[in-house]
């Protein structure tokens, strides 16, 4: 054991060994920490952006990919859809019979397209309104559609082709008969044997009476004009379908009114959540003033604190895939921060580029709130996390261009031992922001669509052009509420 005595002695002596490091070490450590954190933040942001882009790309690819596949499937399927449409229209045409004369005289036919027969198929066809001006010979048609779904437009185009094609009644009859029997075989439509199925083909009523083994198809001249009440009734009688399903909402333009409240601050670094932290706002002696030749106290810039901020605006949102949407809008934002300044001084400010002769001393006595009024043009991509159509979480990311309308902010200057003054020319007018957030979407009891969640906005354009004032980039964080309104049909 004596052999370890030397080691014990050495260890005992060295345990007490301390050396005080030079003052330069800590600032270097601190600088390294901040720098590394900033790097991590930027990496995180780009990772988030990449994920967003990948998801967006996937959604768009999926959307167009499905479109192409369906386009390849071809006209046959569209024919079936149209056939289903005709079946449904005819289903409500009994009442329309009474107004058919009037409808014919006006040469107007309104068809409400809601594919009831395909409800079991769960197709994504939105409602279609087709106004067809048709003369007795059936040559001229005008088709209006208020949908965005290209698949539906393909169906409509196919329908037009059918309408315009100079087929004889016999050909048409055979074709329609074949379609219905095919669909029956594939169980696309359910048939109540006690009831007849009625379809409309180019102004003719197709009555279909199913029996055990044979199919009877009859044609009768008919044109239909659906009244609003009938449309409502049509919607109500669709079994197992909600009055406002996702299929209906999907790809409609929606007006969005948004309001967001939170706090904003001006940071030294991009994508940082911290305000400017100057070494100390306390004053320190100016070099070369022990004799009292100059001002005895120098005021360093005040550390800034976050202040209340809000944003409000209107935007237009559109679904670009079943789980993602894009919105473009116009917003107003009131951002700012709080600094500590001294008393207001009179005129006499000559050495700075100030637009106002009034300035404030740098002594941290009073709190001053800087306000910045911006107008924004945000473009936001939103991706729904879960598939529930009524209640879902969504991630959003985007960018906005903002323009500084006005401000009452003060700028720091080292003149006169540190002062604050107004100079609007030192603020950058046009800014570029990145936006991100997460939100919860739900429908209220009154059928109002609401969206609520935290939002962040990172300014990447430097705010103050002066190098003496270290406040550089705006950061806004708050809670945003959005109300959705469906765009009215014309």
């Amino acid at each position: 054991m004596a052999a370890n005595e030397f080691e014990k002695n050495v260890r005992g002596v060295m345990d007490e060994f301390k050396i005080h490091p030079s003052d330069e070490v800590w600032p270097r450590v601190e600088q390294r920490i901040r720098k590394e954190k900033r790097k991590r933040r930027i990496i995180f942001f780009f990772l988030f952006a990449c994920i967003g882009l990948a998801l967006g790309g996937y959604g768009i690819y999926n959307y167009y990919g499905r479109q192409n596949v369906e386009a390849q499937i071809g006209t046959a399927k569209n024919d079936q859809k149209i056939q289903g449409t005709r079946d449904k229209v005819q289903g409500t045409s009994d009442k329309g019979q009474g107004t058919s004369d009037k409808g014919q005289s006006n040469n107007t036919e309104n068809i409400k397209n809601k594919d009831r027969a395909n409800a079991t198929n769960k197709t994504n066809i939105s409602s279609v309104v087709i106004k067809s001006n048709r003369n007795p010979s059936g040559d001229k048609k005008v088709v209006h559609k208020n949908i965005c779904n290209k698949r539906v437009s393909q169906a409509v185009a196919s329908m037009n082709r059918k309408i315009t094609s100079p087929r004889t009644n016999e050909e048409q009859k055979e074709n329609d008969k074949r379609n219905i029997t095919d669909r029956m075989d594939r169980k696309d439509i359910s048939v109540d044997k006690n009831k007849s199925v009625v379809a409309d083909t180019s102004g003719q009523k197709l009555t279909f009476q199913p029996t055990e083994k044979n199919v009877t198809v009859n044609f009768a001249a008919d044109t239909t004009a659906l009244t609003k009440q009938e449309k409502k009734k049509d919607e109500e009688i669709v079994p197992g379908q909600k009055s406002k399903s996702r299929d209906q909402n999907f790809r409609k333009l929606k007006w969005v009114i948004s309001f967001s409240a939170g706090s904003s601050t001006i940071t030294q670094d991009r994508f940082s959540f911290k305000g400017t932290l100057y070494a100390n706002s306390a004053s320190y002696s100016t070099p070369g003033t022990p004799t009292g030749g100059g001002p005895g106290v120098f005021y360093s810039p005040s550390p800034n604190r976050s202040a209340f901020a809000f944003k409000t605006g209107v935007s237009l949102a559109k679904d670009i895939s079943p789980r993602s949407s894009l919105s473009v809008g116009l917003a107003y934002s009131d951002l700012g921060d709080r600094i500590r300044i001294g008393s207001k001084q009179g005129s006499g400010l000559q050495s700075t580029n100030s637009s106002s002769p009034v300035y404030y001393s740098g002594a941290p006595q009073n709190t001053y709130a800087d306000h910045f009024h911006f107008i924004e043009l945000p473009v936001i991509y939103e991706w729904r996390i879960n598939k529930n159509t009524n209640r879902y979480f969504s991630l959003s990311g985007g960018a906005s261009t903002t323009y500084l309308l006005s401000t009452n902010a003060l700028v720091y200057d080292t003149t006169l031992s540190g002062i604050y003054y107004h100079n609007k020319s030192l603020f950058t007018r046009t800014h570029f922001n990145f936006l991100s957030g997460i939100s919860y979407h739900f429908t209220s009891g009154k059928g109002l669509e609401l969206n609520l969640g935290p939002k962040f906005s990172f300014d990447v354009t430097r705010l103050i052009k002066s190098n003496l004032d270290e406040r550089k980039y705006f950061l806004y964080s708050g809670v945003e509420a959005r109300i959705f309104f469906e765009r009215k049909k014309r």
Partner: protein
Amino acid sequence: MLSNDNRIMDYYKLVKNCLKGRPDAQRQLYDHFADTMLGVCYRYTKSTKDAEDILQEGFVKVFFSLKQYRHDGELGAWIRRIMVTTALNFLKRNRNYRDQMYFLPEHLHPVVNDGPVVMLQAKELADLIRQLPPGYQTIFNLHAIEGYSHVEIGELLGITDGTSRSQYARARALLISWLQNYPVDNKKENYGSK
């Protein structure tokens, strides 16, 4: 004087605040351990500037690894291990040290019971250790002061434990001879620190 419980509680709060990114807590942690840790770094290097570089690098690692600290051991010991690892990496990376840190496999030198009683001050002893060749210096620090076994040292430095033993024996013998001949009155003449 803080009791152990209070100290643990203080360290717990300190670490928690550091993890929140509070600059004042980070500064407090640095101030609390910087002197001791610079003493550690000092023993592994030949100049104070290098020691401060290691200290800086070590504290950056400490702040970024702090979330891995489980409060199951002494915070100082945990930071010390980071400093030692940082110092070893520095020695391997720095050409001035790397070129002199060669470990030739040598015959085992048994550690004899000839250790004198160390009557020097800590600074003087540290300066003596710094006079050792870098290889000896590193192994002596790791084994005699930090308490690493030769197997652990072998793993850290990429050498066999036998090499570590023999290097340590030589370092120890050399240091003892210096201590035995250490002039009490004019110590700086023989062992002037850099």
